[in-house]
């Protein structure tokens, strides 16, 4: 039987403060970048409105070359980006950019296409993708994405409150919020574009992280039912250690799938893959250091009334007996 990290007795909870500082620094870097970059996040045109085109050139070209062609057509501020290979470029024009032949009733995409074809030759450019989003649609999508995240929070909270207890629900939701913040900081650091697909990736990260948290909490719930003389803190540590092989294995298989996406699924889906790859780390991290540590804190700060849960009350009494409660509850 091949075994990794079997029968470990690491004291995970002991490190919670260090980890809290570490993750706070991470989020702070994200915040600094957010303000330093002025415009904040790099939203895709789905959210900002505007026109995006992906062009494939017959032979490799440069940003400057493409920019020259576009400046002539009246798009000096269009964003030009190489997309995966030297022959693929994306051009993105903000909605306020009009171009020179807008009067003739030409759409922005038509003008860009014409400008590129005029510069590089008709047969040397192929437009493989065009996206246009009106300003109203973008606003709506942004609102819907936010609503989706908030509702998924609410639904999770209610489900966990029913299946476990509200304290578990709160701890899990805070851990999830932490995941969103660290992931956003990560997006800031890599300057990834926030598109609908990336929002989907963030929501998947939430799902994955919750998964992880719930599996540890399920162990905690189970271990609390056992008639052991053990402090709550030890129960948490034991639960994390017992689920460690599973965490590592699931982590490995999911990471394998994510890496396959990141390396082989191409440029279109790459931001999604990056977010997922990071999310798997942060999800596992937060299940241990945020969710579990927070649950311990909540249980000590707002102790249950006697008779509410015998297991937890017993463990808390054990905590007090060992004089550990103070350590955890210090603010």
């Amino acid at each position: 039987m091949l075994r990794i990290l079997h029968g470990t007795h690491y004291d995970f909870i002991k490190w919670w403060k260090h980890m809290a500082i570490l993750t706070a620094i991470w989020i702070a870097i994200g915040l600094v970048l957010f303000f330093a970059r002025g415009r904040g996040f790099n939203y895709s045109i789905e959210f900002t409105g505007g026109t995006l085109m992906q062009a494939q050139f017959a032979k490799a070209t440069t940003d400057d070359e493409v920019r020259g062609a576009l400046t002539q057509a009246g798009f000096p501020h269009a964003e030009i980006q190489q997309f995966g290979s030297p022959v693929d470029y994306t051009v993105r024009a903000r909605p306020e950019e009009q171009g020179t032949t807008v009067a003739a009733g030409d759409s922005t995409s038509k003008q860009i296409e014409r400008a590129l074809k005029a510069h590089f030759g008709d047969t040397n450019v192929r437009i493989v993708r065009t996206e246009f989003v009106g300003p109203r649609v973008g606003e709506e999508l942004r609102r819907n994405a936010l609503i989706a995240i908030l509702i998924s929070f609410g639904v999770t909270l209610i489900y966990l409150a029913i299946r476990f207890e509200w304290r578990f629900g709160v701890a899990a939701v805070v851990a999830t919020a932490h995941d969103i913040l660290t992931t956003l900081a990560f997006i800031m650091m890599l300057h990834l574009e926030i598109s609908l697909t990336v929002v989907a990736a963030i929501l998947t990260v939430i799902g994955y992280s919750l998964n992880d948290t719930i599996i540890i909490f399920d162990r905690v719930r189970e271990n609390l039912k056992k008639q052991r003389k053990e402090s709550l803190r030890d129960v948490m540590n034991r639960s994390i250690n017992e689920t460690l092989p599973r965490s590592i294995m699931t982590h490995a298989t999911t990471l394998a799938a994510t890496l396959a996406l990141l390396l082989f699924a191409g440029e279109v889906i790459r931001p999604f893959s990056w977010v997922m790859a990071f999310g798997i780390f942060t999800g596992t991290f937060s299940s241990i250091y945020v969710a579990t540590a927070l649950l311990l804190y909540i249980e000590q700060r707002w102790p249950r009334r006697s008779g509410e849960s015998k297991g937890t009350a017993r463990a808390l009494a054990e905590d007090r007996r060992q004089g550990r409660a103070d350590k955890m509850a210090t603010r």
Partner: protein
Amino acid sequence: MSNLKWRLIGIGGLTVLAAFLLFPRNKTVQQRGSDGVLRETVQRHVPLRYGLDLQGGMHLALEVDDSKQVVANKSEAIDRALKTVRNRIEGFGVSEPVIQKAGSDRIIVELPGIADQDRALAVVQNQAFLEFKITDETQALERVLPRLDAIIKDKKLAPATASTPGTPTPGAPKGLQGLLTSADSGKPDSSKKVAAAKTDTTSKDSLQLNAGGALSNLIQQGGMSGEYFVETANVATVDRFFTDSSVKAALPPAREVLWGTDSTVMGGRTYKSLYVVDSRPIITGEFLVDAKPNTSPLEGTIVQFKMNNVGGRRFRNETGKHVGDYMAIVLDKRVMGRPPVIQSAIGTDGQITMGGKDLAAAQDLALVLRAGALPVPLKVAEIRSIGPSLGQDSINKGMRAAIIAVALVVLVMVVYYRLSGLLAVGALAFYVLFTLATLAGFDAVLTLPGIAGFVLSIGIAVDANVLIFERIREELDRGKTVRTAIDEGFKHAMPAIIDSNVSTILTAAVLYQYGTGPVKGFAVTLIAGIVASLISAIFIVRTFYLLWLQRTRGTQTLSI
């Protein structure tokens, strides 16, 4: 024993159902051939629908355009517009288009496999409101021009330097005049239209326009009564003048100013035509019963139309009164081609010349005329257009990633859990089959994020197995027999599996509800994946174990 039998029957049943859902079937598809004729072809393929981002095509969101007129009840207007759009798309010949209302004021149109974005846009968006109007013969515009110039000056509508560099028109009226005449004599056969214009210019002197005002500087009389030319570079300026409310108010009564679709090249400059016509149409397209494209050796591509009897009678009456006049064919407030002279009373049949446009344009115009006018003008709120090559590329890359992901997961599982890992991998095969079948069964659309979700779910799918296997190991550690350890392992792992998967399904459901397009596809794949993974990890792996236990009676070791 009988328990095992039922389990095997259950798995067999599910597999047969999945195979049935995925079995390739025939489908009749309407497609327009290169000659423009709609044909029905029978295609045979696996009933898994690719999203537009994978097969290429165009996604459109249309809204009521209320910039020009106020629309009281948008939702109702959209309902009526939806019918017209559907009729048009059906005639356009796209296989499996989606045309639906989204929210209260939007129409979503999805056209798989459409490469020509502009054509599709035109077909969907053309309001196709057809009117026939007599061009003005009273020189009404000339008479009000000084007043218009004064208004423009007062309101400072003209750019500070009216003579924009590069456009010699303003301030140099004489030069322009010369240009027109020289162009006419210099290129007598440049096009049929200019030739026609020439004959008229000789009869009517067009040079009295140049009063020196901001507007009159930019406008030049054309070849027939009510026709004017504006240089392309000035079109935007002139258009801005005419949309100003005080200018509009000062226009001659019962007349309107409309742009033409044609442009004329004279002396190296391109001019756009502008027409002053009676605002009352002699007839509208509501009486039209048929329209078809055609080519005529003289006029190039044309659209021939037929009116019903009522329309025909009225048309005959009206045109009878206007013999010798020019009749502008106005489609969506734009004059199509050059207004022809009415030679004699016209009955039920008529035609629209398409100018230099090709047969496809004539086909599309005939199509929108047949399908009827849109009750309200529509504007595009969103376009997503993916070329077929990019879609194919996405499919290839997505599939490659999926295969590599599966290989990696299989490797990890088999190395770590040996025989049990192999059982889990066997179950994974069922998982893939069930997921695809669920997608086919619900007629879900497979998008690129959907493929990503699927690849991801392969990694997550084995999670339930991992949980169970770890539990079984724990039970074995406690010295339980193999059979009991397996039973207990499954039992104890269950709450964690249920809770974690239900919460993920809830998140995916929220995504489905609030997501759009590709993201919806992602949510559907995720949900299908989770359900399939629960069936395969819990039910199928358990059955494999039972089978294995039965064959190796009384075994004391388990390869896990």
